[in-house]
């Protein structure tokens, strides 16, 4: 037979759960009706906490406290190789940039829209919805639908779109967030890419279309801007379509600043 103490305890626990559920539903409702006041408060507070945490983390990592001599030597070698590779790539890019400048002068292209540079103020891998926070908001002229780019508006690539704006913060949804579809173009051939999260997407295109690893992927709806590169292509001889895997040309976790520009009309 159940003791009265146990029965009372169960009832109290159940009451606590009911109250918590009602409070949660109320908070969601208030947030929706107020246009995101609660969200704004939570995000502002969390971005401060994240800033403190990430600074502490990088201080610990850069102190080398947890690194062995061998690990540091390996890292040094790796970084030297990376520097050499990057230098050769920069040389190639400088040449392309020069050519591009000349071509722009020839066709009289208008300069791209002016945007704002914003720091990333949250983790880029913690969101189940493929979102992250940037430190620019309404006061900086950011509006919902603005395009978020890595690099400059001229040579960068699109990594997301502003989906919610607060006074000093904006929530950005990654261009390849889970389940997000975007119409893109590879070598002039249209393709619908479905986001997989983590800066990856995939889509199907007819086998007749020539697609190679490293090909640029652009989005006509975003002013023909670069949104990724082809990472892999797989095809089955019995299938009329080939599967194309696309990734953004940078590592999200290494990005510190982004460039927010108005969406092209």
């Amino acid at each position, binding site marked *: 037979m159940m003791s009265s103490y146990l029965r009372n305890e169960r009832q109290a626990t159940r009451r606590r*759960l009911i109250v*918590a*559920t009602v409070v949660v539903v109320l908070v969601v409702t208030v*947030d929706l009706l107020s246009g995101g006041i609660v969200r704004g408060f*939570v995000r502002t507070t969390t971005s401060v906490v994240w800033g403190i945490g990430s600074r502490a983390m990088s201080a610990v990592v850069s102190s080398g406290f947890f690194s062995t001599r061998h690990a540091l030597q390996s890292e040094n070698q790796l970084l030297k190789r990376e520097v050499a590779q990057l230098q050769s790539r920069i040389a190639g890019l400088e040449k392309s940039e020069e050519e591009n400048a000349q071509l722009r002068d020839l066709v009289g292209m208008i300069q791209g829209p002016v945007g704002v540079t914003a720091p990333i103020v949250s983790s880029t891998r*913690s969101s189940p*919805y493929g979102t992250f926070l940037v430190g620019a908001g309404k006061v900086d002229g950011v509006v919902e639908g603005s395009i978020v780019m890595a690099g400059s508006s001229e040579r960068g690539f699109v990594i997301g779109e502003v989906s*919610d704006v607060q006074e000093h913060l904006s929530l950005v949804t990654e261009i390849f967030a889970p389940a997000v579809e975007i119409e893109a173009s590879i070598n002039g051939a249209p393709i619908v890419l479905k986001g997989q999260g983590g800066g990856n997407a995939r889509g199907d295109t007819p086998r007749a279309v020539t697609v190679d690893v490293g090909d640029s992927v652009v989005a006509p709806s975003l002013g023909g801007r670069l949104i990724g590169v082809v990472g892999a292509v797989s095809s089955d001889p019995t299938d009329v379509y080939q599967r194309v895997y696309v990734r953004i040309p940078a590592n999200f976790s290494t990005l510190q600043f982004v460039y927010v520009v108005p969406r092209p009309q």
Partner: protein
Amino acid sequence: MSYLVLSKVRPALAVLGFFSAVFFSPLIPLAVMILLAFRYAAWEVLVLGLFVDLLWFTPDSTGGLFGVLPLFTCIGIVLVWSLEPLRSEFLT
């Protein structure tokens, strides 16, 4: 395991959940929510789900049902209440 250790598991898990919602993969808060809901009648599951959604989610009417549904809040509510009979039967 001593009572002292056991009594600290629940708050420790909750703290881990909130911490990982900000810094780590979303799978960790999800795992924490499942673990807490299995073992305890934990209101922390609901609050953690709400916290994840307030932090990362924005309702988007163009995204269909998935776009307007705060997923982690719903998962929290479902976990807490669907596992309630199981906990009442076996864990008290």
